[in-house]
């Protein structure tokens, strides 16, 4: 078991009170597992991605634990988290295009980063070149400035850089959304390859593009309003979703390539509840076509089939 998240609660502090962005999230991630994390914007999927590596200034860890390879991950303590970062947990950010210091040559920046994390760059230089070649980049990019690279090249550089220390967990946060379809494909393929070669043990792939998830992910987790709605192997989610929300989500997809964000799920009437004062019970009940009285109780996340978890009173019986 690589990662075990237990009842994680992370709130955003705002003027009007706490936004319950993650409100009791529990799941496991197995060695070698690539998990797609999907849901509408604002459902907490990015918050989950961030929480696992670094809470930003307004995020507050309220409750819950995280365990990585049996070790406790102290996400509330920024300083204690430092040893985990990069070495154990790494990130390909949403903004990979601008994640590199624009005024440093890429090689130099990587070296400086490595050195600051206690790694002698020359012990790893060869590996770096090999991995660059693996993703189809000339090692000469190290002598270039970020501005000289195309978006896809930068993306791949970030990918190589993020996984250079063979982390246990890689979080890819909307890592491909800024790329065109063919580049997306090759980046996704590289990621799978990295997992296969053991450069990363497991991966959480945050995206709104379910079709992309389907191509690469072993499992898919769907979140709704700060909670997990359903988690299951990718094919199950696509072909046999159980949670009404997942069903509507999949059903609302007009075709491959269109993103959930663009369509705004017009197929599902209503809007997600505000997370400032989340409603009691099932958070989907107001939009749910099959909601009934019992939905005013919070449904637990239960394993309805092996590896298939859902949080709905109507499933799993």
């Amino acid at each position: 078991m690589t990662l075990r998240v237990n009842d994680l609660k992370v709130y955003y502090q705002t003027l009007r009170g706490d936004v319950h962005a993650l409100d009791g999230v529990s799941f496991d991630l197995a060695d070698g597992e690539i998990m797609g994390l999907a849901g509408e914007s604002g459902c907490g999927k990015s918050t989950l991605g961030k929480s696992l590596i670094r809470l930003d200034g307004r995020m507050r860890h309220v409750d819950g634990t995280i365990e990585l390879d049996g070790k406790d991950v102290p996400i509330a303590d920024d300083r204690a988290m430092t040893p985990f970062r990069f070495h154990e947990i790494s990130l390909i950010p949403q903004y990979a295009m601008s994640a590199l210091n624009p005024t440093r040559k890429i090689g130099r920046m990587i070296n400086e980063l490595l050195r600051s994390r206690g790694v002698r760059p020359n012990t790893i230089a060869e590996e770096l070149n090999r991995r660059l070649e693996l993703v189809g980049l000339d090692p000469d990019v190290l002598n270039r400035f970020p501005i000289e690279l195309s978006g896809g090249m930068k993306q791949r550089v970030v990918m190589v850089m993020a996984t250079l220390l063979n982390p246990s967990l890689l979080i890819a946060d909307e890592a491909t959304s800024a790329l065109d379809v063919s580049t997306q494909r090759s980046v996704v393929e590289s990621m799978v390859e990295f997992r296969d070669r053991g450069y990363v043990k497991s991966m959480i792939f945050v995206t709104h593009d379910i079709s992309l998830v389907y191509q690469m992910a072993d499992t898919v987790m769907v979140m709704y309003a700060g909670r997990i709605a359903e988690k299951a192997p990718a094919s199950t989610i696509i072909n046999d979703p159980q949670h009404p929300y997942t069903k509507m989500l999949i059903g609302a997809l007009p075709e491959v390539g269109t993103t959930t964000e663009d369509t705004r799920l017009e197929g599902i009437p209503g809007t997600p509840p505000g997370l400032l004062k989340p409603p009691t019970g099932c958070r989907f009940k107001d939009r749910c076509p099959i909601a009934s009285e019992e939905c005013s109780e919070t449904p637990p996340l239960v394993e309805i089939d092996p590896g298939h978890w859902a949080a709905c009173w109507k499933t799993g019986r």
Partner: protein
Amino acid sequence: MSNIPGAPGAADGASAPEAVGERKVSETLHFARRNPKLLIGSSIVLILLLTGLIGPLFVDHGPNEYVGPQSQPPSSEYWFGTTTFGQDIWAQFVHGLRSTFFTGALGGGIAFVVGTTIGFVAGYKGGIVDEILNMLTNVVLVLPGMVVLIVAVAYLDVRGLLVQALFIGLTSWPWAARAVRSQALSLATRDYVDLARLSGRRTWRIITSEVAPNMSSYLVMSFILLFGGAILIAAGLDFIGLGPAGGVSLGLMLENAVGWSALQLGMWWWFIPPGTGITVLVGSMYILNVGLDEVFNPKLREL
């Protein structure tokens, strides 16, 4: 001044504009009320403005009249003391504040109008118009404004506040134009502007109704900076004797104090108030501006 990023949150305009707008306003207000920089800055500016507006009404003699004993230090009768000739320095100060505000507002205002107009048009229109306006901006930007002002103002026969403000306005707009241009440039490519363009609305309407509101905070801050800048330039001109003839301003007070050897005669009450007035006024404007920046710009709120 290129450090103020584009209007945030412009992307989600369509979903629920009113609700979002309202929330944004109330949020801004909330932060505004809690920002010490904004509060301190604006209250000082306000106090000085009120002093300039109301103060003269409570002084029953003209600022240049010989009313009291000569060279008196501050006293209960003459709060800021008197000049070598027995003029009431408090009277000069309040009148001076008034004209300083006037020059600043007018000079800054003219620069603002010219700068933003050129910036908007250049950024929005693009192409050859942009090319020409940008060239113009760069030329005026490179020319040392104060020196041009000195040369030009020196040759004027009649010097008044109005003319001074006009000249200041006409030379200090370039950076505003440059900054507004780059902002407008990024806004002009946004969807809703495209939509407006497609629907055949006139450039001017699009700029005023679509582009400008989205950078209103930015514009407010530009105006304040131009305001403060104009005050400083005017003070400089006044100081070298190119101020309005027969008028009163804080810069002229400084000039007079120096000209009549207030430093050597130990009459600190003559040159401290006008200099402090200018410094505190402009400084408060700058601090107010940082406050505004923090209020408008969520990224800065956390610091």
